[in-house]
């Protein structure tokens, strides 16, 4: 099949690349997470005005609870903001059907169609019935049919077109196959739900045996609201519970609608996030809906039998410890941050590290020795460093370090780095080059030499790129703690201008996947390990915190967990008693 797919360097470029296909008359889909939409939104807020030609579908997956994210923003207001139709699939099958339909809708209204998913839809699997794949029949050709079609010419006229497109989408939504109602004709309470909330609502109604009194209006098209459909159902009840994640987006829009339709609808009581029946933070689950229904309708239903819950608490409560996430055994980031910590201490001028998003974000916690002091958006560590580095005139005299991964460098660090060079800022950028986009699934990036479909691709040379900006560039192997620390200290003390350290070592998971043999066999010489009586105060286990190195409470000494140790051998260099032995394999 003739399909082209790429990993774009960032979300804005991805949306632009997909829009190009649409402008040339062919269909395109672009997918990102909620933070990604922020990056792409500058383009999106102009693309909505120019409109599209070939169907263009923008899929955004939100991460309620921020399970793998730095925030838990709800993307849906972006649909209202950009005046674009919004679809919310409830499960795998519907995600597939809806995406197909979204292309058709996009071509019908000649604008982008947004599909909003959440973790429990995108990170779920289910059996899906497939249809026949369509073969592309159109040839790509860029051929504007109107003066200034893809430009901001005639902004207000285009804005008016945009309003009309929303109205058209609303009309189409009134009979969308993705909206349906189940339940009694005159429900005592009506649940209006969308996305992941639908399955949880079904499950809750079933668990409480409320099939005869509670109805569920499941909406797949949540912006613009299909007002007539919704009003029909609102007219048949006087209690409404909204089930959605994360923000009260649907709830607010329903109330807006009821405000307009009040004389016809009469009094309605709304339950949901504003009433406190549903949580305003974190992801949804079926138990929350069970709880809300129980409370509104005065039904008793404990999720777990009280006796069992009590026994479970007694038997497991005291012994199940929390499990904090941290760097893997043999992770090069731990080694780099160890050197950062030591270099900052040796420098002694109160230097600090700004950072951003990747596995190395965990450098804000114990396994990264709490080194990262700021984490916001991708690339923002370097942008902040560029700003901190210009505060000298205002009395600022702390060395500034910033870290980013190789993938993040390409995504959003380059403009900040150039900003620093141009404005003669003063900081050291550490590129943690692990040859991987490790936190998010090991997709290739411009530095890996592989394309999205696994074919050879040109490799962008990090070092050469930094050199071309006129910065001083050093390269170090993070597993060589001494050399890395020396180079860092030297860069830090080479005050003035922007300096770059490329800390280069392949991600441990990639090494394992490629079945690279461990470099070393590591063991603790129990004769040499002096345990608590050594002056080091358990430096290796208490501070270095590699999961492959454990404190054996029986022998009161450190030991290697051979199942977890990856044989990087770095810990041998931190033991002051030389009790950790590494032997070349």
């Amino acid at each position, binding site marked *: 099949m003739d399909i082209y797919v790429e990993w774009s360097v960032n979300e804005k470029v991805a949306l632009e690349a997909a829009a190009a296909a649409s402008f040339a008359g062919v269909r395109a889909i672009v997918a990102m997470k909620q933070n990604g939409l922020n990056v792409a939104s500058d383009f999106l807020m102009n693309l909505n005005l120019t409109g599209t030609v070939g169907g263009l579908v923008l899929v955004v997956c939100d991460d309620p609870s921020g399970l793998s994210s730095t925030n838990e923003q709800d993307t849906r207001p972006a649909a209202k903001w950009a005046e674009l139709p919004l679809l919310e699939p409830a499960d795998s099958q519907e995600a597939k059907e809806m995406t197909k339909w979204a292309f058709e809708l996009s071509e019908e209204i000649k604008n982008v169609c947004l599909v909003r998913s959440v973790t429990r839809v995108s990170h779920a699997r289910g059996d899906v019935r497939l249809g026949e794949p369509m073969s592309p029949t159109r040839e790509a050709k860029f051929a504007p049919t109107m003066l200034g079609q893809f430009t901001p010419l005639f902004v207000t006229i285009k804005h008016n077109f945009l309003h009309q497109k929303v109205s058209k989408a609303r009309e189409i939504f009134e009979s969308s196959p993705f909206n349906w109602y189940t339940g009694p004709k005159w429900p005592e309470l009506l649940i209006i739900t969308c996305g992941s909330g639908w399955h949880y609502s079904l499950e809750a109604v079933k668990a409480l045996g409320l099939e005869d009194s509670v109805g569920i209006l499941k909406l797949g098209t949540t912006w613009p609201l299909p007002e007539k459909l919704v009003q029909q159902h609102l007219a048949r009840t006087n209690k409404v519970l909204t089930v959605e994640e994360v923000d009260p987006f649907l709830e607010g829009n329903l109330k807006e609608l009821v405000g307009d339709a009040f004389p016809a609808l009469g009094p309605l009581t709304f339950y949901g996030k504003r009433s406190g029946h549903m949580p305003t933070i974190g992801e949804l689950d079926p138990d929350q809906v069970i709880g809300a229904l129980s409370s509104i309708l005065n039904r008793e239903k404990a999720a777990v039998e009280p006796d069992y819950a009590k026994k479970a608490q007694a038997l497991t409560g005291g012994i199940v*410890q*929390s499990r904090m996430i941290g760097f893997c055994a043999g992770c090069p980031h731990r080694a780099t941050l160890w050197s950062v910590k030591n270099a900052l201490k040796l420098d002694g001028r109160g230097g600090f590290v700004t950072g951003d998003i990747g596995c190395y974000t965990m450098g804000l916690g114990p396994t990264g020795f709490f080194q990262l002091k700021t984490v916001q958006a991708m690339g923002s560590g370097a942008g902040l460093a560029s700003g901190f580095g210009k505060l000298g005139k205002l009395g600022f005299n702390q060395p500034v370090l910033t870290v980013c991964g190789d993938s993040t460098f390409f995504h959003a660090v380059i403009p900040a780095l150039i900003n620093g060079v141009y404005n003669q800022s003063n900081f050291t950028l550490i590129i943690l080059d692990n040859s991987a986009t490790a936190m998010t699934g090991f997709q290739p990036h411009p530095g890996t030499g592989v394309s999205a479909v696994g074919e050879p691709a040109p490799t962008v040379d990090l070092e050469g790129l930094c050199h071309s900006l006129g910065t001083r560039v050093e390269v170090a192997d993070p597993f060589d703690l001494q050399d890395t620390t020396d180079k860092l200290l030297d860069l830090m003390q080479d005050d003035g201008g922007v300096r770059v350290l490329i800390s280069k070592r392949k991600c441990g998971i990639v090494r394992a996947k490629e079945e690279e043999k461990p470099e070393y066999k590591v063991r603790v010489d129990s004769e040499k390990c002096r345990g608590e009586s050594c002056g080091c105060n358990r430096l290796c*286990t208490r501070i270095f915190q590699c999961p492959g190195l454990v404190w054996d409470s029986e022998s009161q000494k450190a030991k290697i967990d051979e199942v977890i140790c990856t044989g990087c051998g770095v810990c041998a260099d931190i033991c002051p008693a030389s009790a950790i032995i590494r032997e070349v394999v």
Partner: protein
Amino acid sequence: MEGADPLNVIVTGVGGQGNVLISQLMGSALVRTGHHVTIGETYGASQRGGAVMSHLRISREAQYGPLIPHGQANVILGLEPVETLRVLGQYGNPDVTVITNSRPVYPLAVAIGTAQYPSVEEIVKALEELSSKAWLINATDIALDLGASILTNIVMAGALVGAGVLPLAPEEFEQELQESLPADRLDFNLKAFRRGLAEVKAR
């Protein structure tokens, strides 16, 4: 649990132990045998040494949501003992069947010596008192015996299928392995699966 619909199975462990892979393999095998399956998975940051779980909803009737309500698990498959207990406390009930690996992956607090890992006695007591049937399997040792600790999850899948709590025959799971693994890894994995199977059958 016989005939429970949906059948609720939780696979739990520590990020990196391969709970996602075996959930997928079981899910695909069950779809092949005519079931609707939904799997809710933990991904991302938790995969870095955090507590992870996959929820499997298996039904002849309908597609279910990706999250099992509290107290509603029929089967818990644990790749790590403390994680098994964590899930058991939240999702267990007197009728639940539990199959868990015996080898701990120490939480950092234990590895660094500021907390104690529960004793085998404590773990066994909790497992027995909170389930209708509990199996403790030395899956990591079996995997190491076969040459690689990464096979632990497949050994555990063997134990699960062997325990007869899934509507899935051993050959149906083996077929899934055959179709989803590269040829050079198949033999290794089949061996691991059969060792897990045999471990349960022998008891």
